[in-house]
């Protein structure tokens, strides 16, 4: 249930983001989810892509500072209260979220969540009958 996310450290320099996406495009790597954490002089790009190991290797070859981070991808129904229900379970179990971002799929929404222990988070979500995306599924979105 663990999903591999790519994190890339980027200086805020014109064209760096374009370069990053170009490298992925040239290697036929699809981006399923994407977020930018924005600092004053650098940003962190977090994305979930098809074939993360390949993406990691080609980005390294192109001198990007990239790491692979474990995250969980939670499916929530596309309706009011869906996110609230999930977050309540997480906070009741004393798990703090480092960061999260979301994207909408066809009928549902998907929330990417990073916590200290991804394994623990997945266990709790499963115990509470919440639906998780498997890595095989998400890389194909």
């Amino acid at each position, binding site marked *: 249930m663990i999903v591999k996310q790519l994190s890339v450290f980027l200086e805020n320099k014109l064209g760096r983001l374009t370069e990053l996406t170009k490298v992925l495009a040239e290697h036929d790597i699809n981006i399923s989810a994407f977020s930018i954490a924005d*600092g004053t002089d650098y940003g962190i790009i*977090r994305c979930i892509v098809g074939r993360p190991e390949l993406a990691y290797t080609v980005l390294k070859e192109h001198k990007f500072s990239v790491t692979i981070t474990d995250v969980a991808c939670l499916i929530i129904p596309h309706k009011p209260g869906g996110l609230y229900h999930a977050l309540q379970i997480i906070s009741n179990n004393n798990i703090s979220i480092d960061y999260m971002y979301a994207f909408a799929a066809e009928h549902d929404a998907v929330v990417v969540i990073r916590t200290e222990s991804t394994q623990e988070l997945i266990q709790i979500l499963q115990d509470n009958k919440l639906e998780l995306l498997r890595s095989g599924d998400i890389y194909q979105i």
Partner: protein
Amino acid sequence: MFWNKEIECSSRNELHNLQSKRLHDMLLRMYNNVPFYRNKFTELGIHPNDITNVSQLSSLPFTYKQDLRDNYPFGLFAVPQHQVVRLHASSGTTGKPTVVAYTQKDLETWTEVMARSLTMAGISNSDIMQVAYGYGLFTGGLGVHYGAEKVGASVIPISGGNTKKQLQLMEDFGSTVIACTPSYAAFLSESILAEKLLDKIKLKIGVFGAEPWTEEMRSFIQNSIGIKAYNIYGLSEIIGPGVSMECECQNGSHIFEDHFIPEIINPDTGEVLPEGELGELVFTTITKEALPLLRYRTRDLTTLHYDTCACGRTMVRMGRIIGRSDDMLIIRGVNVFPSQVESVLIELAETTPHYTIIVNRENNLDTLEIQVEVVEQYWTDEMKVLDGLKKKIQHAIANLLGINASIKLVEPNSMQRFEGKAQRVIDNRKL
């Protein structure tokens, strides 16, 4: 190991007598052959025959780099052109270069002091030595080259740059010694690790110089590739590399005082300072034939120590160059040397020794920005950790310098690597 034990360990008294005699000879040669010095001596009412003891040196006038420029190209030479067998020139960033000349005997002197230097670092005819200083007008490459041949090492005159080739020959030829600038040595160390060559090379000694560096930089290089890194000092006006060299004690560099007399002065007043005090290093080249210089102002700031070294040498030791009096940045009234910033960055495991210092003036206030690379394995995908690192660097700089710097983290391996002397300061202030 000693190349010339008799002179390197001679008594201070013997040395004093030798210096006195050689100083007098040099002054006579200057008086007879260099109009610039003859006029100066006449103006000050000095005659070489009045100067018979080295203790009188402090009464004599200084020579400045500007004097070399004013007499460009050959005006300060003390021998006719047909006795000059070599010319070197330093690249002047502004205006004319500085030209230096050597007679056959000067080249022999240079080879001798370089042979002493390399032997001091334990280099002998059983070594294979890669000379990665620039060859050409710069004195680094050829100076080290002749000394290395003299001690019988197998010399690879590869010159600076072309890192791929450096690594290839290092591996294929089994080089045991490398000579280059410390900033290039840091870059080569990183490359050796990145290419996973550590098990395949035989490097054991580094001879690094031509720019000031810190103790932290030494540890960085020594620890990353497991060699012993020695500081060599010199400047082309005095002779080139080989003016002084560190022994195995790595506790200051021995100056070859039978050829070069050092003094430490207060750069503002010109007054000679007591032993151990920090000031500007000044040299008198008592044996040089082609271009003898009297009390030449190096602009390098350091200290001198006359106690006998544990290695047995009696020759005075100079401390590290902590900066150049013209490298010193004055930021909001505080004296800042790039080497201080470097020592902070090397002490932090999270940053590399590659950095740029940018000074600006905004609304009449100096601002200091330091761009620094984060070590690859230390960067995380959490903004708060990176921001915490910025604060940590800022705090360490403020502790040392008493100035708030703005820190900019840049991507690993994105900063320029220098194959010669590093350029790490950009001062945008128009004063």
